[in-house]
Every structure is written in structure tokens, then in C-alpha cells.
């Protein structure tokens, strides 16, 4: 199911890459190396381009803070910087008649009178609006540096792993995975872990210039919640994507739309046929 979501998303990003808007949308075709991933071959091998097992020589070139990498997969895929492509989606949404209303929702029930269907995409904050105990922040601290010679993505799939991801104007070096941690201020010990681990993974970072440090709260959940609500007939959930939001957003959105259609059909909304 996740592979289906990822394939739809990757295909969409590929179609964006093939347009003149590629750069403005923050899309780049990149070589990606994933260290210590299992299983091999991975279940997602047909989502990206050219997955291959790295040679011992290739694996040995990348270090880690503790121990060594045991294996690696290398492939060609895309980076898609959300800061850059979200404004495009927003504009497209508005151009097609969509409305954006800024308001804090205290309870979904407040919305059911006004709207035919409510889709919950509140991510890490979903726990305060639903009874879901499984959604928790997975704190991720990162650092951005200037290192224009770095053009690839290197990820370490182990829990104590680092990663180095080339973006358009800077390189992201990460990271942390602190379960249940809501703190959005960068911490000194995390900066040290990121700096040292990053340099092990990519020694060329020694030439880089630090730009800044940030913290994001991944909406962590054992699995994505993409389903209709058990009690409220008008409510559909689409949250809990962890660190994989950009990887699966399109596939999840398409499946979510199917659920919304169900909701509207139950209420015999004729507009379903026309719009969707």
C-alpha cells in the first residue's frame, strides 16, 4: 500500500521535473545512497530509478560515528523541496476555486454543520483533535550548510544514523529522531551529533559553511492513518506520515479523495458526479 502511494508520488514529481517550472518548484534529479537498508532488494525498488547494491568500495567510503555501514543501495530519484512547491499547489488550489480560511479548530464537531465533509490533515497535532494515542512528535533537528560541490543524497537508515541531502541553495545535514519530544528549539548536543556524524558520512563537509539549525516535529505514528472516522460519518483522516510526507503525499491524497467520494455519496450529494 505504501509502495503504491510512493509510486504515484514519484511519478507526479517526475512529471513536474519534466516541465519548465522544475526549478521554481524545487525539484531536482539526484543520486541517492541509502545505507544499511533492509530488506535487499527493497519493496520500493520499482518506485525509483535504477536501484543497485553498492560495492564494498563504495560503502567503505562513507563512515559513521559508531561502527561501520554494512551495506548500501544507490539509485536515481528526486528531491522535492516543499517550501518551493507548496506555493504552486496553493495557487492551483485557489485558481480552481478553493478557499483558505485561517482559524483554530477546537473540535471537529464544530465543522460538521457547515461542511459536507471534513478531512483531517493536522499531522502531529491530530492527537488533540482525535482520541488517537498513537500520534506523537518524532523530533528532528537539522543543520543547513553551504557546500555547492555536494549534489547527492546520502541517508543512513539506522536509528542513530545521519543524513546529508543536497537542496537547491544549501545542503541539509541531519538528524535526530526523538520520540514524544515537542521541543522546537535547536539543542547543542544535537548540533554536535549532526556535525560529527555528518562529517563521517561525507568528509567533504569539512569545507562547508554553516547557515543555521532548525527543528521539525515529524508526525510519528506506527502507520499512516488514512481512513474514515469510526464514529463521525463526515470525517476522513489523512495524517501520521512520519518522515515520509513528501514521499507519499500524492498517493495518500488520491486514496483520501476516494474516501471523500464515499462520504459525499452517502449524503447523496449530486455534485460528486460533476466535480470529482
Amino acid at each position, binding site marked *: 500500500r505504501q509502495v503504491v502511494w510512493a509510486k504515484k508520488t514519484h511519478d507526479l514529481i517526475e512529471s513536474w521535473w519534466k516541465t519548465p517550472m522544475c526549478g521554481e518548484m524545487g525539484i531536482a534529479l539526484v543520486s541517492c545512497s541509502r545505507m544499511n537498508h533492509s530488506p535487499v532488494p527493497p519493496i520500493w525498488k520499482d518506485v525509483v*530509478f535504477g536501484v543497485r547494491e553498492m560495492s564494498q568500495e563504495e560503502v567503505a567510503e562513507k563512515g559513521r560515528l559508531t561502527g561501520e555501514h554494512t551495506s548500501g543501495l544507490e539509485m536515481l530519484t528526486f528531491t522535492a523541496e516543499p517550501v518551493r512547491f507548496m506555493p504552486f499547489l496553493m495557487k492551483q488550489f485557489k485558481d480552481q476555486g478553493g478557499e483558505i480560511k485561517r482559524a483554530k479548530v477546537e473540535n471537529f464537531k464544530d465543522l460538521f454543520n457547515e461542511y459536507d465533509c471534513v478531512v483531517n490533515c493536522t499531522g502531529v497535532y491530530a492527537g488533540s483533535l482525535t482520541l488517537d494515542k498513537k500520534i506523537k512528535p518524532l523530533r528532528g533537528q537539522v543543520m543547513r550548510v553551504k557546500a555547492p560541490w555536494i549534489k547527492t543524497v546520502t541517508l543512513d537508515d539506522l536509528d542513530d544514523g545521519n543524513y546529508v541531502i543536497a537542496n537547491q541553495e544549501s545542503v541539509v545535514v541531519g538528524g535526530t529522531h526523538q520520540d514524544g519530544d515537542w521541543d522546537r528549539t535547536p539543542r547543542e548536543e544535537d548540533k554536535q551529533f549532526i556535525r560529527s556524524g555528518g562529517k563521517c558520512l561525507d568528509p*567533504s563537509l*569539512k569545507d562547508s559553511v554553516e547557515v543555521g539549525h532548525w527543528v521539525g516535529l515529524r508526525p510519528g505514528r506506527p502507520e499512516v492513518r488514512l481512513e474514515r472516522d469510526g464514529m463521525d460519518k463526515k470525517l476522513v483522516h489523512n495524517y501520521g506520515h512520519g518522515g515520509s510526507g513528501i514521499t507519499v503525499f500524492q498517493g495518500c491524497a488520491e486514496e483520501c479523495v476516494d474516501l471523500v467520494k464515499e462520504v459525499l455519496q452517502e449524503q447523496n450529494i449530486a455534485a460528486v458526479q460533476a466535480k470529482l
Partner: protein
Amino acid sequence: MNTNLGSIKEDDLVVVGCGVVGITTALFLQERFPNSQVKIVSGKLSPETISDVAAGIFRWTMRTPPEYESKWPQEAWAWFQNLYKESPLKTGVSKLPALFFSSYSSEQCESKVMKSVCQVYRKCTPAELNLPQPAGKFKHGIYLHTLQIDTGTYIKYLTDKFMFRGGTIIQAEIESFDEIGSKYIINCTGLGSRKLAGDREVLPIRGQVLKVEAPWIKTAMYADDVYIIPGQKYITIGGTRQYNDWHTDPEPHDTARIWDRACATFPCISKAKIVDVKVGLRPHRRHPRVEKEESNGKFIFHNYGHCSWGIMSSPATSKQVVDLVAEHFNSNKSKL
């Protein structure tokens, strides 16, 4: 700027030409002969040399003399790998994933040498063959990981080392090697050798390129005659290969052709900002000439004719020519 040819002594080792081949050769001469004075004489200096126009990709499709086929590529590759490890920022060397597509034949994309030096080298998958437009046109493709060198940065790195070790650069145009007062000349004049070395085989293959800003391009892409090569600062889009064309000014219709074909094949480049249009006359020859010649009482050691592969092969051919110089001194037991 030193323009004084009169300061040259008979025992000096004088390198003529200061493109990437010249400066590399001069540096290697300094290392091999620490008791000698190494001087460079050149009409043009970086950033005005042909080397400065190049995108700097390591792609060994150069005709190599058979006796050097298993030597030059590996030496050059090792040289740039070491510079990358030393400092990508200071040396200008980056690692570069690259895709080579062809609508004609697999031979256009494949390279035995690249297969042997690159850690990553494989055929493109059917899905990858649809990356360039239009879908279905490009039936062959190779994906590999190579190196790329920002020439301006690299030449500055080598020049700083050369000067620090006591080297001298004299900016002067010469009509003949007789104008140089030393007995030993190391000829790195590229296209200039047609006249200076009397080598009528040397002819230009004119190349026009666009230097653009497009920081979202992280992977090099070739598709028939279109190429897009990212560096640390700019992306080079090319190109042209105009045989025996000596025209050094940028041509608007070449720019239009390069740009249109690049955008048609890779629409992702369409919003790149063109920063400069440059022309370089590649010094074409069947393969680089690296050999000793005795002429008018001078010993001339040639290292020219690198065509499209100057930056890439310069460490290997420079080492080769320095070996020839060393061989000469050993066999002649001359004092240095």
C-alpha cells in the same frame, strides 16, 4: 605583470602556454627539479584561456596512444580523486553523477575507460530512457559517477602553488621559440602549436557554451549533442563542434540553437538564468603529442593537442612530459 622575456636564463625550464596543461606541467617540473628555475611564458592567462571555457567534466573518450591507454586515465583519475579528498572548495573538484543518452547508438554513450575507472557505471533502465524528451527518442543510455572540475578555481589552486614555490609567469606573445633564451622549452601552447611547432595537424574545433545559473541541476545530462554539466557555481550548457572554425566571438544563432535544443530535450532547464556565453577553440589533433624534439639548439618537449580533454588528461600528459625531461637529463648527464 612580468612581461620581460629577457629575464630568462639558458638553464631555465620554460613552459610556453599557461592553460591547464601549461600550469600543471610547470608545477610538476618544479616538483621533479627542485633545483631548477621553472618559468612560464604565455600570451593568455586564466580566466582568458580556452581551459576557462570548459565545463570540466571527467569523461575519457579521448583517443589515447596505445602505449598509454592503461596508464593515463588511471593516473588522471587518481590525481583528481586526491584533490577532491583534499578539498573540493579549494581545488574546484566535485563528484558528479551523470547520464549519457543517445538516440543513435550505445557506442555514443559507452566508454571502456570510464567503465574501468568509475565506481558506478551501468546501463540506463527503460524508465530512465524516458527522462529526456520526447519519450521514446533516446534508446541508449549510461549512468555513472564521475568528477567535475571548476577550471577557474583549479587553475588558481595550481597557480598559487606554483608561485609559492618560486615560479615565475611572464605574460608575452611569441612568434617563435627562438625568442626564448633557454635551452629547454616545454611546449603547452595547444592551438598555438600549429604555428610554433609547425604542426599542421592541429586545428580548432570551435565550441560555444552557455554558462547559466540553475542550482536545481545536480546531475549532468548528455543527449546527443546537448549537454548540461553542473559545476560548483554555474551550469554549462553546450554545445557546438565546428571543425576548422577560428571564430572566437559568440554567435547568436549558436546560442539560440544550443538553448532551444537543451530546453526541448530537458524542459527542466528552461528557467535557467544565462550569465555568460563563451567560445573556446579546442586544439584538435589525432591525440595529444607528448614527445621530445631537438630544434635550433633547443630541446623542445611537446605537450599539446588535447582537444576536448585538456583538464581531464592534463595530470597524466604533464607527468608524461616531465618523465621525458627527466629521461633527457639522465641520459645526457647535464647539470641542472
